[in-house]
């Protein structure tokens, strides 16, 4: 009974309610959603909202439908869109945030005021941001009228209503593309391991890469996910939404970077200067490496925001605009307008997996460092 001291009992008593609540309302509901995604609930309209619906377990049929079904082209485009959106959103926020932080770090006049101004957009909700930017990006107004200030003709770029896209690829080639990219990464890993003299690692990575490439060469080209080619690419209509999202969140990355910059001890900079580093060299070899952990946390926070984005797109382009749509929007429409609860749950589960890809490695690394400290 020594382990159960009064202190321990207290901590257990205090923690239990939240453990139970989280177990039910977070993990219980996740499990329930995953289960629902493997049933046919809602595929038959008569059963969707019936008092005692007949729900059958169908395994991965809904997932198969999403990735290869003729009618689910919208979802596949959304998946591609969300990847592009995440990429440009993170790059934009990191670039702009770092730039602003570097400027503010030089202590310009009115630094506090600038900091507040740049951070302010974050205090708005995405709905407000979306509405403002929707007005600004109107075909005949706002941003398109800006060139007239300098006497130029107004721009005619269709910000949110464009139907053009670039970087198109055939969805049928997706397994091939994925295999090639992963294979390439494995080759790079193998080369690195070989350089550092780690033989087993070289062999494993090299072997996996060879297997993947072999598969891509022999089996990959014969796989047909869809009966006809289906092109997906980066829609121009997303550009406006990316701009609005970057506008809102770059102040936040700026604050993160500024804190990081302020945390770098002055001695390090002085030491670099004494060693003869110029400004560029100092940033490249001293400051940026020290900012790497901040970049990582910023990427995690921004990454999960962008994968789950819903309200901004809803406010800016409406729910029925496939050129700007994202999976979260589709999940809402599928479940609550079309009453296809199982299919909606499947989209939700895919989103959860995507976010987990971003969050879990981070959490586990955090956990490990904390253990290390303890």
């Amino acid at each position, binding site marked *: 009974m020594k382990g159960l001291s009064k202190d321990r009992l207290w901590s257990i008593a205090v923690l239990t309610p939240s453990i139970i609540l989280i177990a039910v309302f977070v993990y219980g509901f996740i499990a329930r959603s995953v289960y629902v995604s493997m049933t046919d609930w809602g595929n038959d309209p*008569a059963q969707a*909202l019936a008092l005692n619906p007949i729900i059958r377990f169908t395994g991965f049929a809904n997932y198969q439908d999403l990735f290869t079904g003729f*009618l689910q082209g919208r979802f596949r485009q959304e998946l591609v869109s969300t990847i592009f959106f995440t990429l440009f959103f993170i790059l934009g926020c990191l670039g702009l945030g770092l730039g602003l932080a570097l400027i503010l770090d030089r202590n310009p006049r009115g630094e506090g005021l600038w900091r507040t101004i740049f951070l302010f957009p974050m205090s708005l909700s995405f709905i407000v941001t979306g509405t403002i930017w929707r007005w600004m990006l109107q075909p005949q107004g706002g941003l398109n009228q800006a060139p007239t200030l300098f006497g130029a003709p107004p721009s005619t770029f269709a910000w*949110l*209503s464009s139907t053009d896209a670039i970087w198109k690829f055939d969805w049928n080639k997706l397994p091939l593309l994925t295999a090639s990219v992963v294979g390439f990464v494995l080759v790079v890993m193998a080369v690195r391991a070989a350089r550092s003299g780690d033989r087993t690692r070289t062999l494993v990575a090299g072997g996996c890469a060879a297997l993947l490439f072999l598969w891509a060469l022999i089996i990959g080209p014969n796989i047909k996910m869809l009966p006809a080619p289906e092109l997906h690419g980066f829609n121009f*209509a997303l550009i406006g939404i990316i701009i609005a999202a970057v506008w809102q969140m770059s102040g936040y990355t700026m604050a993160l970077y500024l804190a990081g910059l302020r945390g770098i001890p002055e001695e390090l900079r002085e030491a670099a200067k004494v060693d003869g580093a110029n400004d560029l060299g100092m940033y490249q070899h001293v400051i940026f490496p020290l900012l790497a952990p901040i970049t990582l946390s910023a990427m995690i926070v921004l990454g999960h925001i962008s994968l789950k984005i819903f309200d901004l797109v809803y406010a800016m382009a409406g729910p029925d*605009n496939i050129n700007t749509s994202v999976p979260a929007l589709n999940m809402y429409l599928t479940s609550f307008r079309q*009453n296809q609860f199982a299919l909606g749950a499947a989209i939700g589960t895919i989103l959860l997996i995507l976010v987990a890809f971003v969050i879990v490695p981070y959490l586990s690394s955090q956990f490990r460092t904390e253990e290390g400290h303890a």
Partner: protein
Amino acid sequence: MKKALLLAAALAVTTSASAAGKLEIFSWWSGDEGPALEALIKLYKQKYPSVTVDNATVSGGAGTNAKAVLKTRMLGGTPPDSFQAHAGQELIGTWVVAGRMEDLSSLFKSEGWDKVFPKDLVKLISTNGKPWSVPVNVHRSNVMWYNPAKLKAWGVTAPKTWPEFLKTCSTLKAKGVAAPLVVGENWTQQHLWESVMIGTLGSANWENLWAGKLKFTDPKVVGAFTTFGKVMDCANKDASGLSWQQASDRIIDGTSAFNVMGDWAAGYFTTTKKLAPNTGFGWAPAPGTTKTFVMLADSFGLPKGAKDRAEALNWLKVLGSKAGQDAFNPLKGSIAARTDSDLSKYNTYSKSAAADWKSNKIVGSMVHGAVAPESFTSAFGAIIDQFVASKNSAAAAAAAQQLAVRAGISK
């Protein structure tokens, strides 16, 4: 768990006992449409003064928000006493097939509604001869709007068929009108699509399409998709950024010549834009649909398990009555579903629509939920978007057919 259930049951009993004479109605009518609903409630209170009416509105998004709230309430076992739904398949495909609505046959018989509502309408709101809701108002979907002064200046008239429309379109393009037709965001394009379909296929084929007797992959339907593609070539390129009001504005300012929109546009032109009918704005049936009335209607139904069933039935009686319909519709800007309404209470446009309502062939609108369930309509938007980008009629028709099979329309 048992205790909680007992407690809930006890609470339910006491509340229903203490509030004898209570009625909760659920709708998305607020804002501009609020006064029309208030007029109905006033009428109800005159007849049943002891009943307290709880007017539960969930505004916004043409009912999308309300429908989401309604679903949680129905699934949670606390349905409102009566709720608004678009008449036809939107109610049938969601709630009737799920076995959650009461059959209103006896009410229709006792009130004599079979005679005052047009036969085509009763067919649209029924399955196997059982009506499921009481239509309050009627809107027309297949109306083409234009600016009479502008048409005169361009020297064109409102076209009567879609091939004629395409000719007029190239005439106007030659005169420097870049987009003779104006469309707005996705649903307005679906709205145009149904007028093109009915105008090309005819009303009988349109009915067959939704009865599952005509396949979307039929050459006739594929051909109509091609016509729709040509019509969209006449339209503005910034469509998805425009609301229907912004699209209507382009008719008035002469940027575009034609717009196909439901007759709520008449209210927008007269009330918001202060234009006189026939001079400030003009209208004609959409090309090819001259003797056809493509209708959509709001209606109220009776969910199973309504707490105040008797009061809800009285409410439905008021809705279907001549006095009720003539109190509501002039304010809402729609026409009565009954064919015996007092036309002196209505405006110029509504009078012409009411005349057509009595004489024309009546078919249901797809995008507004009369002939297709939500599971079809909501997913069909993506097909239209893809078609407008690719102009591939065969692919769009094949996708629509698959969707129809999934939604249980076709086999």
